[in-house]
């Protein structure tokens, strides 16, 4: 049956779908037999070329993760390959007598070369990342350019690494008694490692850590307030990229059996970025496509251009450079992005579901909720000045468990400033903010997410291309603990199922249960606001800070939201909301705190606020 038929009649769709192979699964399945026979039928020259492509693709894969997914970029990939290749080459060629006694066993050992190469690569990447990743996005590329150049000159000048001539005479690779001494045998090793790396990357992206990395691009403030450590996520992506380069370097040393500074120059680092971009940085398979197409195109151009120009030189760089400019202007997704789009157009992904997916995994443990009536949030004399302007003056109030407090006031009353301080994005000039009896002013938003404070944003902040379910699962980030290795090896599945189930549960609870697999950006604004509440609930908070939750909602949606908030209140949640919609507020909340010009003008239950002369004056310009 054609998928198009199904999508026209959604009612006919089966409610339980068969476990389907992902597109990457199909690609792997198709690729394996081709790779298995390739070295048997291809001439050695082609096999050598395929080996190079495999090594390049491995390094490019790191850039796809870094540039395409995490939105950072690095020109240091070639230099990382160089560090690892040189470490491997040095240990493979040095005589045991030249190494200090306890390290003598390393001489000639390929595995020692691999270990030392990876350790060195990761150590350097850690230092580079530590000094650049906290800064704005321009420092990492500039830092890696500087380090790539330095390393090139360093390789060329160090006597024990052979200076500009390099190190030659690397013996053939011998692993556990198996000699990998020709292009054909190396082919299997290289492509096995590459495919494993591709699978590990796909696994990583589809996990808790992967969501944190994917949120780096345009969602850092949001994910930080959900407890994601952005710096750590950036470091993770950078280290994984460096690790792939390190592996590539080890393979390179044993494939070429000779290393010199030239292949690890900055120019090569730029070439890797070009491979990633041409292949398509948004797709993991773009690395393979990019490495292959650039390698072939380079060969072709190197034959063609000297005839055309009558001179030899690095002229293919002109063509590649122009191609990149054109790609960035016209087709930023690269080849793989273009293919993926073409496929998507043919079979629309599953959209709105007709039935709810029911949670199946064991629910996550919950934090002990405060007793009803316990003071959860307390502001004591909070004052915030911006230069001469006093945005908040001496604000004091409490929010108790099982209570909804609304902060209202005309535009410019200082509500947003107050909200920012309560959510630890901004800090008071004087005064204290207490959360469950502890001072929190001065702490970071990320620290508070772990303590049980969860928020929504006035201007919706979500990751538009990620699914609704994944967006909400970011809220549960701190309730999981599995790291990169577990994700890459799929040892995180039980926890992942519980996290996704929690997200599903909260989405069903807020009424978005049918939209789990829809792109979050395609929801209506009101639904996006509700999504933010589901995301906040995923963190298992005891205090919800909601910034204008009813803005943009239709009447029925508002009613549903009010019902949800009432239910949360009855479960003992403390809720503070900043709101403009008086009808919504007055029928719902327990107490209202009214601000004007940064100061409190009234506080009390809705009924008394509605007749308070000061409030009427502020809103209506006074009673005649």
């Amino acid at each position, binding site marked *: 049956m054609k998928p198009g038929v199904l999508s026209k009649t959604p009612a006919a769709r089966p409610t339980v779908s068969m476990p389907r192979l992902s597109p990457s699964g199909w690609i792997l399945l198709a690729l394996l037999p081709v790779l298995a026979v390739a070295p048997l039928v291809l001439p050695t020259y082609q096999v050598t070329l395929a080996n190079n492509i495999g090594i390049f693709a491995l390094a490019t894969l790191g850039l796809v993760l870094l*540039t395409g997914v995490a*939105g*950072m*970029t690095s*020109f240091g990939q070639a230099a990382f390959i160089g560090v690892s290749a040189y470490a491997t080459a040095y240990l493979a060629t040095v005589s045991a007598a030249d190494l200090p006694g306890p390290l003598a066993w390393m001489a000639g050992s390929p595995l020692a070369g691999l270990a030392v190469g990876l350790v060195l690569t990761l150590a350097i990447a850690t230092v580079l990342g*530590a*000094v*650049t990743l*906290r*800064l*704005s*996005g*321009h*420092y990492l*590329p*500039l*830092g890696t*350019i*500087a*380090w790539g*150049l*330095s390393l090139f*000159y*360093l390789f*060329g*000048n160090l006597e024990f690494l052979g200076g500009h001539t390099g190190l030659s005479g690397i013996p053939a690779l011998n692993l556990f008694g198996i000699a990998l001494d020709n292009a054909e045998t190396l082919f299997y090793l290289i492509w096995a490692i590459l495919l494993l790396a591709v699978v590990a990357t796909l696994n990583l992206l589809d996990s808790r850590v992967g969501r944190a990395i994917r949120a780096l691009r*345009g*969602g*850092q*403030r949001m994910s*930080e307030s959900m407890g994601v450590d*952005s*710096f750590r996520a950036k470091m993770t992506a950078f280290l994984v990229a460096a690790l792939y380069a390190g592996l590539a370097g080890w393979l390179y040393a044993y494939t070429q059996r000779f290393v010199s500074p030239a292949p690890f120059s900055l120019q090569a680092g*730029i070439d890797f*970025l*070009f491979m990633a*971009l041409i292949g398509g940085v948004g797709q993991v398979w773009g690395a393979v496509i990019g490495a292959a197409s650039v390698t072939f195109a380079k060969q072709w151009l190197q034959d063609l251009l000297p005839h055309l*120009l009558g*001179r030899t*030189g*690095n*002229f293919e*760089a*002109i063509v*590649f*450079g*122009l191609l*990149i*400019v054109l790609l*960035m*202007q016209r087709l*930023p997704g690269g080849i793989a992005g273009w293919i993926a789009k073409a496929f998507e157009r043919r079979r629309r992904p599953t959209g709105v579901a007709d039935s709810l997916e029911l949670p199946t995994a064991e629910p996550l443990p919950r934090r002990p909720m405060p007793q009803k009536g316990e003071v959860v949030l307390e502001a004591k004399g909070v004052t915030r000045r911006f230069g001469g302007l006093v945005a908040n003056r001496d604000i004091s109030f409490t929010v108790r468990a099982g209570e909804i407090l609304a902060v209202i006031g005309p535009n410019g009353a200082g509500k947003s400033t107050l909200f920012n301080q309560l959510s630890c994005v901004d800090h008071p000039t004087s005064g204290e903010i207490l959360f469950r009896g502890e001072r929190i002013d001065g702490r*970071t938003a990320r620290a508070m997410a772990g303590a049980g404070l969860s928020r929504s944003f006035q201007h919706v902040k979500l990751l538009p291309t990620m699914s609704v379910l994944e967006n909400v699962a970011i809220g549960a980030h701190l309730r999981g603990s599995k790291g990169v290795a577990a994700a890459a090896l799929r040892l995180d599945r039980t926890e992942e199922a519980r996290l996704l189930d929690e997200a599903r549960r909260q989405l069903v609870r807020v009424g978005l249960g049918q939209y789990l697999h829809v792109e979050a950006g395609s929801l209506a604004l009101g639904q996006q606001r509700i999504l933010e509440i589901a995301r906040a609930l995923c963190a298992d908070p005891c205090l919800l800070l909601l910034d204008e939750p009813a803005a943009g909602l239709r009447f029925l949606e508002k009613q549903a939201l009010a019902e949800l908030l009432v239910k949360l209140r009855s479960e003992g949640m403390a809720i503070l909301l900043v709101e403009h919609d008086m009808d919504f507020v007055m029928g719902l909340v327990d107490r209202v705190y009214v601000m004007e010009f940064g100061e409190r003008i009234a506080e009390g239950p809705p009924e008394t606020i509605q007749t308070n002369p000061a409030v009427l004056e502020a809103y209506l310009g006074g009673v005649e």
Partner: protein
Amino acid sequence: MNLQIVMLLGQDGITNGAIYALLALSILLVFTVTRILLIPQGEFVAFAALTMAAMQGGTPVRLGWLLLALSAAALVMDSHAAWRRDGRIAVRRGPALGLAYAAGLTALTTLLPLADAGVALQALVTMALIVPLGLALYRVFYQPIAAAHPLVLLIVSIAVHVVLVGVGLLMFGPEGARTEPFSDGGLRLGMVMLNSQTIWVVAVSLALILGLYLFFERSLYGKALRAAAVNRLGAELVGISPELAGKASFALAALIGSLSGILIAPITTIYYDSGFIISLKGFVGAIIGGLASYPVAALGALLIGQAESFSTFWASSYKEVIVFTLILPVLVWRSLSHHGAEDEE
């Protein structure tokens, strides 16, 4: 090391540092106005130096052809944009004049005997070639994606740099060149002999910095550029065209780059790909200034000049390693004084 050597190295350091400072200022200018890290800044330097050398050596000046090609591309892109907007092809005056200018200048540089024209005229012709080149680069490569993510702009910058280096090899060949000094002799100050080219470099740099200061403080266009740097959207709302701001900053960058190239050509042998390393030292200066502060960037660049000059003496082959490693402490300090995550545009 005696005092004489110290003075000699210091003088070298000041000469190079002044050039790096100029480049750092121009990199900052372009970055704050357009968010573009102008990696091809160095190509302006190398192209200017090699064009001067070509004129003096009597070899053909080919830079005009590049300008001509880019101007033609700009004209085509402009007409294409007009066609997509209005449904008919219209040739606007700006790009047409640009093409005519490029054609005229190319003809002049090919036909005139520039070898005997004297340094001043040669320098003038070089700048007349490179300043519009900056403009055309912005129009062709950056203007269509001016609103893109900074990462995309950076990638395009790298790509343009790669293209220009390739074209540089095509135009100037692989040989390096050095030009005649502007004047002979020097100035004796006590026991120190000041090289005449050093005096030229320092004097021109100071004059240029003063000129830029006056431009940004006094002239309306300068103020408009500053406004665009402070708040792009705000500037656009009060009628400052981002296109104009982008082109103006690129033209200024090309002017500064070509002057630097003309100044440095008699001191160092320049190859078609030397520009990158030179401009990178300007970048290090700009990084020291946090990609924001002009005076700190200029001071940082002067420091780089000194560091380079003294490391040439102590560890000549590790010169570049030392210079580029210098950014590490700067980055450490910046990281430590930085708080929190922010989303970029």
